[in-house]
């Protein structure tokens, strides 16, 4: 790690402390994630194939955790948005910006695995099931947030604008969820297909929880790694401005 120059104008409150912490947290979380996922999936694939859904129920171990993570990461981003707007903590907008792509990735995984899981029962590749459609809207909101990040050149003003959009989204998500659920019951008489199964058999619940934990550590590792890069990106940007300033 090159020794970073002491910045006269403090771009971030305590970047070096965070960078040192990141140095050991990323490998630790990655190792934990690998361990838990291996164990969770191993257990999961040992469990007896459920009677009516057959083998495809095993997709649940990736589909359900990614749904939880897509929502969990968005809530974390909403907290980071408060961090940017209320407590003005500079690492908050770095966290906000780094977690958006990871959240979007898990939303996408949830969508695709959900569609594949429903495929044999629905007979079509996409079924406007209430939960999947809400996840699609959440994915759209994620893309909007990433687009707004990329629209600003200057990171500070971008962070504040995105923080407002994230909070507005946070208020609107329950409304969208309710409307979509209400709407999905309109078109189908009753949702014939329950994605997460009528009752969770213990042999399925344990692996599900373990793999969910595994995915969470994986997400945490990725977000912290992305944050570390973002800190470096801002330092590069400041150095460029500094160099430009001196060249005057």
């Amino acid at each position, binding site marked *: 790690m090159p020794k970073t120059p002491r910045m006269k*104008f403090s*771009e971030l409150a305590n970047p070096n402390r965070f960078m040192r912490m990141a140095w050991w947290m990323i490998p630790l979380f990655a190792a934990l994630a690998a361990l838990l996922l291996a164990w969770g999936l191993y257990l999961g694939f040992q469990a007896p194939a459920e009677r009516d859904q057959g083998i495809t129920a095993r997709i649940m171990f990736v589909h359900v955790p990614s749904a939880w993570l897509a929502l969990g990461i968005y809530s974390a981003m909403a907290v980071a948005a408060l961090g940017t707007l209320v407590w003005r903590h500079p690492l908050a907008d770095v966290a906000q910006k780094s977690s958006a792509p990871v959240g979007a990735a898990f939303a996408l995984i949830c969508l695709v695995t959900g569609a594949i899981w429903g495929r044999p029962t629905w007979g079509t590749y996409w079924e406007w099931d209430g939960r999947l459609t809400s996840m699609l809207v959440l994915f759209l909101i994620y893309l909007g947030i990433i687009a707004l990040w990329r629209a600003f050149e*200057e990171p500070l003003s971008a962070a504040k604008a995105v923080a407002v959009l994230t909070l507005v989204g946070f208020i609107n998500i329950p409304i969208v969820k309710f409307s979509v659920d209400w709407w999905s019951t309109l078109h189908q008489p009753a949702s014939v297909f329950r994605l997460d199964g009528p009752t969770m058999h213990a042999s399925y619940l344990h692996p599900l929880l373990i793999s969910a934990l595994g995915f969470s550590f994986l997400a945490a590792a990725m977000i912290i790694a992305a944050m570390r890069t973002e800190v470096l990106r801002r330092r590069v940007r400041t150095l460029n401005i500094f160099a430009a300033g001196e060249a005057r």
Partner: protein
Amino acid sequence: MRLTASGISCARGGRTLFTGLSFALSDGELMLLTGPNGSGKTSLLRQIAGLLPLESGSIVCEGFEREEETHFVGHLAAVKDALTVSENLAFWVELYGGNAADLAGVLEKFRLDRLASLSARVLSAGQRRRLALARLAAIRRKLWLLDEPDTALDAEGRAMLVGVIAGHRAQGGTVVMASHGTLDAAPSQEISLAEVMRTAAA
């Protein structure tokens, strides 16, 4: 009426422009801000107006409510081309609650009366600047924050501006003006941001 700023600093895009700047203003004063381009004159004016948050330090006003008593004339003249000259001025008077009675008088004072019913699109830069400055006379406010108000003004326009500023100061108003010294408006105080920057950088 007193406005005291203590230890304010400003950074733009990661570079510190000035730190630890303090000054005090009372009735009838004109503070001149000088300094090279990019030394933070506009940012300081925007901080005083409350448009830009302070990095550090504080601005305290006694005897008047800063939000209701500030005029800010920036580089941009805030003139809408689709409206006529009088409509432009009338809008700001309506929005800011000025008295719409002597609109004609104000336009005449700024030599815009003949252009009153023309669309603002046809105005020259100098005429646009005079329309922006007309807001100062049409709406009574104590604190004037002027960012290089004399740009694009001809000799006669500058003389008129000096007169308007002197009149405002005579009635107890206060003015903070960023300028390149092209306007001899007899400032009571002067802050050169170039020096403030050098002392901060050393």
